[in-house]
C-alpha cells in the first residue's frame, strides 16, 4: 500500500507537464519545440496547416532516411589513403646474400656420388641408346636401391590411348625395343617421367611426367638429394656450405669499411649458408641519411662457379634479397639474381603501406591472432605472410606424411623426410603440393600484415671487372683471401654489388579512417539542422513528450480503473466540468472548425494551476493528503 502511495505521489510530482490529454500535449509540443516545422503547423490557416503538417512529416522522414545512410556509411569503416613521398633518414634494409648453389660440390661429393653416377648412367641410356655403349659405361655395378625408391621412367606415347612405360634400367629387351624406335623420326614421342609410389613396390603409383627431360632430371635430382641431405646434421650442412670469409671478399658501407664479420650467418634450406647484413638482431640497425651509390653498401663476392653441384642448380650467380630488419628472407619469392662477372647496381625505394587493423581491414599486426603455428619464430623473426604459408604447409605435411619437408623448419619433435624412414614421402609430398584444397586452406587461414614494406629496386648492370683492370683486381682479391700470389678467382665467380637509396627513398601510403565518430555526429547534426533546424536538445524534447504521453496513458489507465466503480455516479460531472476547457481548445485547433463551442457564457478561466488536479484523479490525491 505504501509503495502504491509513493508511486502515485511520484506520478503527480512528475506530472507538472504541459497537459492532460494527448492533443493538448501535442499542441504544447508543437508550440514550444525548437525544431522548425511543428511550430508552423499550429500557426497558420487551415490550408497552410495541412501543407506544413505534410512538410514536417516529409522532412522528418528525410532526416531519418539520411541518418540511416550516414550510420551505414560509418559502419562500413571506409578508409582514405594519403601518400607521402620524399627522402628521409631511414633504416638501411637488411641485405641477405646467398650463393645460388647451396653446397660446395667438393664437400658434398661423397654423399652425392652414387646419385651422380646413377643420373649419368641414366642420361647415357636415354641419350645414346646403343646397346653396346650402355653396358660398357657401367663399369662398376650401380647401386640401384636409390634408383628404385624413386625411378625415372620413359613413357612411350606412340599410341596415345595406351602409353607404354619403360624403366630405364630394366631388362635389355625393352631397351632394345627403345632403340629401334628412337632411330625413327618419331623419337620425340618419348617423355621422361618420375614414378612416385606411396610405398615401395606397391601399385599405388603416379607418374609425374614432364614435357622436357631437363626438367625431369632436375626434379628427380632435387627429390633424391633432399632425401640424402635431410639425414645430415645441421652443423655438418653448414660446414659444407660457403663460408663467409670465402664468399665476401670486400665490403664497404658508406665511407666505413666492413668485412664478413658484420654479416649474420643463417642456414637457408634452399641456398645453404646465407649472410645477412644489417639484420638488426643483436645490434642497432644502420641508418642511411644520404642518397646515392657513394653512401650505400658495396660488396664484392665470389661464388666460385666451378664448385657448383652440376645437377642441382643450373643457374649461376648470387641470390640476394632486401628485407626488413628481423624478418626472415624468403629468397625464392622475393630474391633477385646477380650475375657473375658483372657489377649490379640496385637503387632502393622503400614502398610502405600502413594500414589500420580491425575493423577497417582484415590484417594482423604481429600474427598472434593467426591460427597457424609460426615455425619461423625459432629464427626470432617477425611474422610475415610467407612464413605463415610455409608453416601451414609444413604442419599439413607433418600431419599427413608423418615427416617434415627439408625446405621448411621443423615443428618440435618431428624429423625430416628421407627415403629410408618414410619410403612414400615423395609421393605424399607431390600430391600435397599439387593439392589446390590444401593451398586454399592455407590462404584462408593466413592473414597479411598491416604494415607492408616492399623494397622497389631499380637494377642496372655493367661488365665488371673491365678487361684492363681484370688482372690486378683478381690478383689483389686472391691475395687478400688466400695470402698467396696465385690467382684463385675468375670472371665466372666474381660479383660486385652496389646497394643504395634512390633520391626519393620512401613512398608511404598510410590509411586513415574516412568516417570518424566526430564526422558522424557533425553529419547527423548537419542533416537534422538542414531539414528541420533541430539539435540533440530537440531529440530530448521529443523524448520528454513521449514520457509525458506515457504518463498520461498511465494516469488514464489508473483513473479508468479507479473510476470504474464511481463511473456511473460521476459520469455527468466529469463530462460537464473537467473536459470543457480542453474541448474548447480542441475545437479551436481543428482546422476549419468554423463553429464556436456552445456559448457557456463566460467560461471559467483556463489557468494552468487549475488543471493540476483534474477531477478524475482527485480520488488518489486526496487520499494521500
Amino acid at each position, binding site marked *: 500500500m505504501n509503495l502504491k502511495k509513493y508511486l502515485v505521489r511520484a506520478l503527480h510530482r512528475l506530472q507538472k507537464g504541459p497537459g492532460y490529454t494527448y492533443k*493538448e500535449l501535442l499542441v504544447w509540443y508543437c508550440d514550444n519545440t525548437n525544431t*522548425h516545422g511543428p*511550430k508552423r503547423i*499550429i*500557426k497558420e*490557416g487551415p*490550408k497552410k496547416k495541412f501543407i506544413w503538417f505534410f512538410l514536417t512529416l516529409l*522532412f522528418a522522414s528525410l532526416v531519418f532516411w539520411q541518418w540511416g545512410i550516414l550510420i551505414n*556509411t560509418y559502419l562500413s569503416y571506409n578508409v582514405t*589513403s594519403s601518400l607521402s613521398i620524399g627522402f628521409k633518414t631511414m633504416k638501411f634494409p637488411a641485405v641477405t646474400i646467398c650463393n645460388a*648453389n647451396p653446397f660446395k660440390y667438393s664437400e658434398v661429393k661423397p654423399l652425392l656420388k652414387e646419385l651422380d653416377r646413377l643420373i649419368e648412367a641414366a*642420361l647415357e641410356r636415354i*641419350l645414346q641408346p646403343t646397346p653396346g655403349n650402355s653396358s660398357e659405361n657401367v663399369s662398376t655395378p650401380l647401386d640401384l636401391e636409390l634408383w628404385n625408391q624413386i625411378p625415372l621412367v620413359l613413357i612411350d606415347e606412340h599410341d596415345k590411348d595406351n602409353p607404354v612405360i619403360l624403366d630405364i634400367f630394366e631388362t635389355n629387351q625393352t631397351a632394345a625395343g627403345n632403340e629401334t624406335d628412337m632411330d625413327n623420326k618419331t623419337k620425340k614421342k618419348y617423355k621422361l617421367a618420375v614414378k612416385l609410389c606411396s610405398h615401395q613396390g606397391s601399385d599405388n603409383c603416379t607418374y*609425374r*611426367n614432364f*614435357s*622436357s*627431360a*631437363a*626438367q625431369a632430371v632436375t626434379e628427380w635430382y632435387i627429390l633424391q638429394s633432399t632425401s640424402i641431405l635431410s639425414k645430415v646434421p645441421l652443423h655438418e650442412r653448414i660446414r659444407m656450405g660457403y663460408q663467409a670469409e670465402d664468399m665476401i671478399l670486400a665490403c664497404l658501407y658508406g665511407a666505413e669499411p666492413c668485412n664478413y664479420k658484420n654479416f649474420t650467418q643463417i642456414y637457408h634450406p634452399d641456398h645453404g649458408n646465407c649472410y645477412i647484413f644489417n639484420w638488426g638482431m643483436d645490434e642497432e640497425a644502420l641508418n642511411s641519411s644520404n642518397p646515392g651509390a657513394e653512401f650505400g653498401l658495396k660488396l664484392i663476392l665470389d661464388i666460385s662457379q666451378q664448385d657448383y653441384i*652440376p*645437377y642441382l642448380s*643450373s643457374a*649461376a650467380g648470387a641470390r640476394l634479397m632486401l628485407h626488413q630488419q628481423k624478418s626472415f628472407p624468403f629468397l*625464392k619469392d*622475393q630474391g*633477385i*639474381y*646477380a650475375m657473375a662477372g658483372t657489377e649490379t647496381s640496385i637503387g632502393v625505394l622503400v614502398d610502405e*603501406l600502413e*594500414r589500420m587493423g580491425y575493423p577497417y581491414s582484415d*590484417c594482423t599486426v604481429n600474427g598472434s591472432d593467426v591460427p597457424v603455428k609460426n615455425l619461423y619464430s625459432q629464427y626470432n623473426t617477425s611474422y610475415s*605472410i610467407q612464413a605463415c604459408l610455409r608453416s601451414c604447409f609444413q604442419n599439413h605435411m607433418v600431419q599427413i606424411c608423418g615427416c617434415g619437408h627439408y625446405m621448411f623448419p621443423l615443428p618440435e619433435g618431428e624429423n625430416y623426410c628421407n627415403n629410408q624412414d618414410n619410403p612414400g614421402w615423395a609421393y605424399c609430398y607431390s600430391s600435397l*603440393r*599439387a593439392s589446390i584444397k590444401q*593451398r*586454399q586452406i592455407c*590462404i584462408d587461414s593466413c*592473414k597479411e600484415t598491416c604494415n607492408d614494406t*616492399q623494397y*622497389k*629496386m631499380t*637494377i642496372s648492370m655493367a661488365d665488371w671487372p673491365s678487361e684492363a683492370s681484370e688482372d690486378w683486381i683478381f690478383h689483389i682479391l686472391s691475395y687478400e683471401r688466400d695470402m698467396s700470389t696465385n690467382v684463385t678467382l675468375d670472371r*665466372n665467380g666474381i660479383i660486385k654489388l652496389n646497394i643504395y637509396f634512390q633520391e626519393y627513398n620512401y613512398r608511404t601510403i598510410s590509411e586513415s579512417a574516412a568516417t570518424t565518430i566526430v564526422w558522424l555526429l*557533425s*553529419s*547527423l*547534426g548537419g*542533416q537534422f*539542422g*538542414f*531539414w*528541420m*533546424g533541430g539539435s540533440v536538445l530537440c531529440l530530448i524534447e521529443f523524448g520528454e513528450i513521449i514520457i509525458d504521453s506515457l504518463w498520461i496513458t498511465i494516469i488514464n489507465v489508473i483513473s479508468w480503473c479507479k473510476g470504474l466503480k464511481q463511473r456511473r455516479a460521476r459520469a455527468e460531472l466529469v463530462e460537464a466540468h473537467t473536459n470543457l476547457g480542453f474541448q474548447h*481548445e480542441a475545437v479551436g485547433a481543428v*482546422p*476549419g472548425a468554423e463553429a464556436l463551442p456552445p456559448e457557456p457564457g*463566460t467560461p471559467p*478561466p*483556463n489557468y494552468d494551476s487549475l488543471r493540476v488536479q483534474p477531477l478524475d484523479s482527485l480520488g488518489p490525491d486526496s487520499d494521500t493528503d
Partner: protein
Amino acid sequence: AATAPGKKITARLKRTLPVRGPQAPTLSELMRWYCLNTNTHGCRRIVVSRGRLRRLLWIVLTLSAVGLILWQCAELLMNYYSASVSVTVQFQKLPFPAVTICNINPYKYSAMKEYLSELDKETKKALETFYGFSEGKSKVRRSVDDWNSTGSDFFEQIPLLKVEDFSRTATELHSGQKRKIEGSVFHKDSSIVNSGDSNDIIGFQLCDANNSSECALYTFSSGVNAIQEWYKLHYMNIMAQIPLETKEKLSYSAEDLLLTCFFDGLSCDKRHFTRFHHPLHGNCYTFNSGESGTILSTSTGGSEYGLQVVLYIDEADYNPFLVTSTGAKIMVHDQNEYPFIEDIGTEIETAAATSIGMHFTQSRKLSKPYSDCTETGADIPVENLYNKSYSLQICLHSCFQKAMVDSCGCAQYAQPLPAGAEYCNYKKNPNWMYCYYRLHEKFVKEQLGCQQICKDACSFKEWALTTSIAQWPSVVSEDWMLRVLSWDKGQKLNKKLNKTDLANLMVFYKDLNERFISENPANTLVILLSNFGGQLGLWMSCSVVCVIEIVEVFFIDSLSIVLRRQWQRAKKWWSGRQRGAGSAGDPEGQGQGRGHDNPACMDEDLPTFTTALRLPLPQDSPLPRTPPPNYSTLRLESAFTEQLPDTLELG
C-alpha cells in the same frame, strides 16, 4: 446531374480549406511579422533591438551571415566532384597474367631469302659504296652488273643518298650522279644534336609521286640508323604483299621457340600457348591467353610456382639488317589487353636465366564527372581495330591507322587493317611512303588530333616487374643441360645446341598481395546536405523550413500584398468614378480595420525573454464578446482567424 456532386465537392473544399491571402495588410507589417516569427536568429534581433546603432549592427551581422552561408555553400558545391583514394591490399589466389613471348627476329632468314634477296643485295651494295664494307669476298657475289634485274625499280625510286649538307647536293647510289636537292630537309635524328657538321650524311628522299617538286629528304646522323630505317621501309613494302598464312609459316612455330615449359609445379607444353601474329615480331606465343575459356591462377608465390620456359633463339637464322640484337621479347599483360610488344616489351638475354618477379596492382579511376576517362571506350569516336578491350594505346594506333587510310588510301603495315582497306605497297600506292612520313610527323607533333580524342581507360591492371639475370647454364651444368635439351629438341646428337641460342625465363608472383587502388567519391548527396545543414545552422540556425518561409513570405505573400493593394486601388478608383466623390466611406472603414493596430500582427508568439516588449492589445478588439485572457494555452488559436473581407476575392 453529373456536375452537381463535383460542384458540391468544390464548394465543400472551399468551405473547409478556404484560400486566404496573407494576413498582414502592408509590406512593412509583413516584414515585421516575419522577423518576429521566423526561425532564423538574426532577423528577430533586428526588430527587437532598440537604438539605431544596435539595429544597424544586427542588420550588418545578419547580412554578413547570409553572405557567408552563400559563399560556403558555393564552395561546397564546387568541391562536390572530388575523389578520395583508397588502397586495399588483398591476399588471395591471383589470376596469372598472360605472358606473350616473341623472338626478336620476326621471320627465319633462311625462309625469307626468296623475298628479301634483292633488298639485301642492294643494302650490301650501299654498304660497300658508302663505307667500303664487304662481308668477305666469298660470301658476296660482287656482280654489280647482273643484279639489275627485276624489281630493282622500287629501290631506285627511293635510293640511299649521300648528302653534302652545305652544297645541298646528293650523290646517288647507282648512278653516282650528283644532283641538287629540292624541298625541305628533315634530320630524323638531329633533334638533339646538330648533325650538320659531319661531312657525309646518309639519308633518303621521299617525293610526292603526283607532284615531284614536293620532296622531303630524311637524313640521319649515323649510317647505322639510316641503313636500318631505309631497310625497314623497303622491308615493310615487301611484307605487305605476302599473305598472312604464308607469313605465319615463315615465322617460328611453337615447337621451334619453346623447348621446355613448367607452370605452377606442373609440366606444360605448346597447347598452353596461343599463337598470335605480330606484324613486326612475327609469330608470338601467349601463355595463358584465356582463349580456351579458363584463366590459370596461382595460389603460391615464388619462382618455383610461376612460369618457367626455356626458349630456343636460333641466332644463326637472324636477319642481319632488320634486327641487330639477339634474344626474345616478352610482355606481361591482361588477357583482354592487346600486347604492344614493340612498344613496352621486356628484352630477354640469351645464355642467361631471366627471373621476373611480379607484383600486381589494380587501379580504378572514377569516370565522368570526376575525371575524363572512359570505361569501355564506347564513347570514343575512334573505331577499335584491335580485337581486345580498350586502352589508350589501341586508340592512338587505331586513330593513326584511320588517318592513314583516309589520307594515303592504304593501311600501314604495323597495325591491323580497317574494314575494306589493304596494306600499302609500292605497286598499288606508289605515293604511300611520302604520305606516311608526313602523316607520322603530324601525329608525333599532335597535329592529327588523336591525342585529344583518345582518353585513358578508367581501370587498368599493372604488373610491376623486377627483372634480374643470372648466368645459365652454369659452367659445370652446361654440358649435361645442353645434351638433354638437344634430346628434347629431337636433334641429332652430334649437333649439340649452343648456349647462346637458349634463354631461360622465369615469371612468377613475388607475393600474392593484390593492391587495389580505387577512387571513391569524396562526397555523396547525403554528406553535401549535411554540410549545407551545418553551415546554415552555424551561421543562422536556419534550415530548409527557413528557406521555405523565406520563399513564402518574400515571394508569395509580398506579391499578393502588392497585388491586393493594386486591386483595391483599382476598385476604389472604379467605384469612385461610378459613384462620384460623395460616397467613399466604405473603403475607408475597411482601411481602418486593417490599420497598423491590426491584432493579427501583434498577437503573436513572442520569445519569452521579450515578453516585456509585448504591446498591449488594442482596445477596440473586433472580438464581439469578452475574450478569455490570453494565456499561453490559448495561443494555439490562430491570430488570423479573422477573415479580411478582401481576401475572399482572391480565393
